[in-house]
């Protein structure tokens, strides 16, 4: 009754709104951004190691090397960032109860990401991807989705965990 009256008043004169402001919980979380960043890291490592096969590097090769190294590092950082966002904003007690090791897994992803920045060894990139895949499988499971693994249809042709959306 009171509500209906106020509602009518609101429609007539448009009452001022007081915002119970939130930190925009957009609920858009998807580990695929981290997976693609990890694939990119491996790809940049491959391209760097290809350059390493050459006897000597031209100025253009050196310029390319500089770009590849810079991109390898920024994508390793991006992978860490994307995982941190999901971990910090999405993972809460229910997910932690379902996956008690999730904090340790996220921490190992942070370490693996840093290792990719420090080195050019492919196995470091592969380890980062493996850990992020593990995180993705856990993430999609907390969403009630099953996952499957497939080889990504582009270089570096590595195994990736995808959600089954049918």
């Amino acid at each position: 009754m009171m509500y209906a009256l106020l509602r009518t008043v609101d429609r007539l004169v448009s009452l001022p709104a007081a915002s119970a402001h939130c930190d925009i919980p957009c609920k858009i979380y998807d580990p695929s951004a981290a997976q693609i960043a990890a694939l990119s890291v491996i790809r940049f490592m491959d391209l760097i190691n290809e350059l390493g096969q050459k006897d000597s590097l031209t100025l253009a090769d050196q310029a390319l090397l500089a770009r590849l190294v810079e991109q390898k590092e920024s994508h390793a950082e991006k992978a860490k960032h994307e995982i941190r966002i999901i971990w910090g904003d999405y993972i809460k007690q229910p997910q932690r109860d379902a996956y008690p090791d999730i904090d340790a897994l996220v921490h190992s992803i942070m370490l693996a990401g840093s290792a990719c920045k420090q080195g050019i060894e492919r196995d470091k990139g592969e380890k980062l991807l493996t850990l992020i895949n593990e995180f993705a499988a856990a993430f999609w499971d907390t969403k009630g989705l099953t996952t499957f693994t497939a080889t990504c249809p582009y270089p570096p042709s590595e195994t990736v965990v995808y959600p089954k959306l049918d």
Partner: protein
Amino acid sequence: MKSELIKSERMPFGLYRVNGLSMSPGLAPGDYVVTLKRWRSRYRVGDIVVARHPHYGRIIKRIREIQPDGMLWLEGTHPDSTSSEKMGAIFNTYVDGRIIFKTTL
């Protein structure tokens, strides 16, 4: 005209529609609240108030803490609320009033 009919700076009462979720479960989006302005020193921790925030605009929050100098720290009642730290302390003169009545659908 619009809202000035209902609420002018000189009037002690205010009538507002609630937007957003940060005060749930106590207040839901679409609720209406009536506020009463108090003397600036008369607000208490735990009061739900409507305030004008320099960045977030007109907000409805609960008083978490009152500093000795009168500055207020506000908080939402929902975990997703913008944090007190992000909102910062506000002058008590920016408070339009304390909620004395609410009505829900």
